[in-house]
């Protein structure tokens, strides 16, 4: 018997699922209705939007806007579980070789054309050609559209994690009209099925969206959840204005020119909190601050040396400096509110024991070689974290040096182990939010983050990774993740410092704006 998946939200979900088993579907509670309609919501965005071609870009700034315009077959709910979005339902065959998606009726693109399975096929074809995460299709044999409302994916071999990958919002497979199939990378015409449609896009200045009156909400839900659910556009228009200067974002929020902003500087928070016209909206667990060691070169090729470094670090000090106090200490690569969270390896986290570090350092045979911390100033948190870590290493006798370059340069340098660095400073943002599988990719070939010597990946780590991907039982996959995380700590393949909080702010009359991985403009309204 095929496993059918049809999502409901909250209590209604449980009731609906139970009722379905008995062949009846109860009436859901009344769906969300905008308490007030109208207005232009101007949101101050910190980074430039280069393109709205979602499959061809993995930047947060693109996702911020594009995920209000486009939709996907399946997506993630508020708790990061896969849910149908443009799919009415989907089934997985018992042998996990066939996924059948039934499409929702009445969905139309912003150009008025009804969405059919031919559009889904074309969107998948384009993604397979240029989508940044097209690697997820490596086990896919083919896809087909037997009728206008059915889309089938046939696998070459079973991949228990396929739905998790397909529902990822990192670089999602958005559904666009079939006519856009051949659009070149970064040149996708911005026509989606979402509640918002594009009006105007001036790179470097703004992106303006307007409510799509032909939008068909997903009636399986009553409320917005994650990137899916029952979505309604309450504003007439939404303007994403590019305001890269933090001071200008603060000024815009204070004057009311901007009704919402992201990434408020910590120094301005005390002042903003006193303003009754402004509500601060912290987005916890924005990313995990990480330093990745280069295990191909001395002295970081020596596990004892890496353990000495691990023992020397005081994560509170590092995160405090990195974030101006907006952080939480966090063991590992998932957050405590996530189902896959594990504290495996916690005994190696935040040790802050200089005496032990010195002892390990002596055992490692460290001879005072320079240890280069590769960081950048584009992301102030990475620079500040490196600065404090360098001082902590010096305190135990390690000759730590900073190498400060810009972000693209540091990314390019860390790809090769022979470019003169020992620790690379980065952040894991979207991947931890997507789950354990997405995050652990950083430790897998080709070119794992810890730069395995001669390209030989740690076999124990790879065994755990294979189990994470192939074990049919979810509990076994979770156990494999815990094993992998513990190994990373034990062998010091990464130094996760803690999680950052991203502080957003809105005017007090903005209702329904809840922090999420992107600013969601649906089900948000002005109270006056």
């Amino acid at each position, binding site marked *: 018997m095929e496993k059918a998946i049809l999502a409901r939200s909250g209590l209604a979900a449980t009731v609906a699922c139970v009722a379905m088993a008995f062949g009846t579907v109860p009436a859901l509670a009344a769906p969300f209705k905008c308490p007030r309609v109208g207005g232009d919501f101007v949101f101050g965005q910190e980074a430039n939007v280069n393109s709205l071609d979602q499959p061809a870009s993995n930047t947060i700034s693109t996702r911020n806007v594009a995920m209000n315009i486009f939709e996907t077959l399946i997506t993630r709910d508020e708790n990061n579980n896969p849910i149908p979005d443009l799919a009415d339902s989907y089934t997985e065959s018992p042998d996990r070789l066939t996924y059948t998606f039934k499409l929702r009726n009445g969905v139309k693109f912003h150009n008025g054309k009804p969405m059919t399975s031919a559009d889904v096929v074309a969107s998948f074809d384009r993604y397979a050609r240029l989508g940044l995460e097209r690697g997820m299709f490596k086990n896919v044999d083919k896809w087909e559209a037997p009728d206008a409302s059915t889309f089938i994916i046939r696998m070459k071999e079973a991949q228990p994690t396929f739905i998790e990958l397909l529902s990822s919002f990192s670089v999602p497979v958005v559904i666009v009209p079939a006519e856009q199939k051949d659009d070149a990378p970064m040149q996708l015409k911005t026509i989606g099925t979402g509640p918002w449609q594009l009006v105007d896009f001036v790179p*470097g200045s703004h992106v303006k969206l307007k409510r799509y009156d032909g939008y068909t909400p997903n009636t399986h839900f009553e409320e917005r959840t994650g990137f899916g659910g029952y979505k309604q556009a309450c504003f007439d228009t939404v303007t994403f204005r590019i305001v890269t200067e933090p001071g200008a974002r603060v000024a815009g929020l204070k004057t009311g020119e901007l009704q919402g902003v992201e990434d408020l500087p910590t120094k301005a928070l005390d002042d903003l909190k006193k303003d009754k016209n402004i509500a601060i909206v912290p987005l916890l667990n924005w990313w995990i601050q990480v330093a990745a060691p280069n295990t191909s070169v001395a002295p970081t090729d020596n596990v004892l040396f890496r353990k000495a470094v691990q023992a020397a670090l005081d994560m509170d000090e590092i995160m405090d400096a990195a974030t101006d106090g907006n952080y939480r200490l966090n063991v590992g690569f998932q957050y405590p509110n996530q189902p896959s969270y594990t504290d495996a390896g916690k005994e190696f986290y935040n040790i802050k024991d200089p005496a032990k570090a010195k002892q390990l350092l002596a055992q490692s045979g460290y001879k005072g070689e320079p240890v280069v911390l590769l960081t950048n100033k584009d992301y102030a948190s990475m620079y500040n974290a490196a600065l404090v870590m360098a001082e902590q290493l010096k305190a135990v006798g390690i000759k730590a040096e900073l190498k400060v370059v810009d972000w693209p*340069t540091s*990314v390019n340098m860390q790809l090769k182990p022979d470019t003169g660095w020992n620790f690379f400073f980065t952040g894991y943002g979207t991947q931890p939010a997507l789950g354990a599988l997405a995050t652990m990719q950083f430790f897998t070939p080709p070119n794992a983050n810890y730069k395995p010597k001669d390209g030989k990946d740690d076999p124990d780590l790879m065994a755990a990774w294979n189990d994470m991907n192939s074990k049919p039982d979810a509990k076994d996959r979770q156990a494999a993740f815990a094993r992998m995380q513990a190994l990373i700590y034990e062998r010091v393949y990464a130094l996760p410092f803690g999680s950052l909080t991203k502080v957003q702010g809105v005017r007090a009359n903005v209702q329904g704006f809840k922090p999420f991985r992107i600013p969601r403009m649906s089900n948000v309204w002005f109270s006056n």
Partner: protein
Amino acid sequence: MAGVILRRLAGAVPVLLIVSLITFGMMRLIPGDPSSVIGGLSATPAQLAQIRADLGLDEPFFLQMLKWYTALAHGDLGRSILLGQDVVGATLQRLPVTLALSAYALVITVVFGLCSGVFAALRQNTVIDQLAMMFAMLGISVPNFFLGLLMIILFAVRLGWLPTGGYIAFTDDPVGWLRTSTMPAISLALLQVGLLARITRSTMLEVLRQDYIRTARAKGLPRRVVVMKHALANALIPITTVVGIIVSLLISGSVVTETLFSIPGMGQLLTQAVLNRDYPMVQGGLLLTTAFLVMINIAVDACYALLDPRVRYESP
């Protein structure tokens, strides 16, 4: 004069070629490439490699160069990797914004710089002179970024007279353009006002000491005629040179102002392109901007000829 302009235009060709070669080489010498920007913060090494291959960045340097120059020979400056727009289109979209802002800043510069310089020279060693030069020094010393922020706090947050940022095109709404461009233009102009005031003052002082000025005064000419017709007219040649340089500085130096006030101009476009390693955009955008600046220099040379008959007569 036509001969001068034609010679200058011919001379511009090797300049543009050298600029394009240097830009191409420099961009490839800087470590990093667009894959890290397209891939975002969370890109895995495998994704980065895939993006590089998709963009052809794994091809040999000289092959990439050959492809770019071949396209250039056909008038194709390429397509921005990150914007997806063709380079000429992106440049033409942004250039008018920067030009409008620079023109506004130039008007402020010339009006305030020239007037304060002339008044300071005419009232040398008086309070007026000292005040004018104090403000000139202030303009030169205060970073325009800092001044911009102060103006935002005062005129936008405290007084609410002007918007904190954004840009409205003059053709869409002239009043809106004035509101969105005034603070950026002042911020951009202040350094140049100081510069021009000091140059004007020193040039005017030099001219005012000349024999022909003394003769003009001795003839009993009104002071206004002496200053405007004899002194200022002769001081305009070096001032014009400085104004030419100022125009270049305003256009090329607008990046900080554009960033602070969220104005989608050329400065922001090219800076972002460099930071993002958007090779075609940097190469094509700089080539077009250089061509534009060369044209301005030729126009300044033409102005010399108009202002100074000797230049006209000396020209073959």
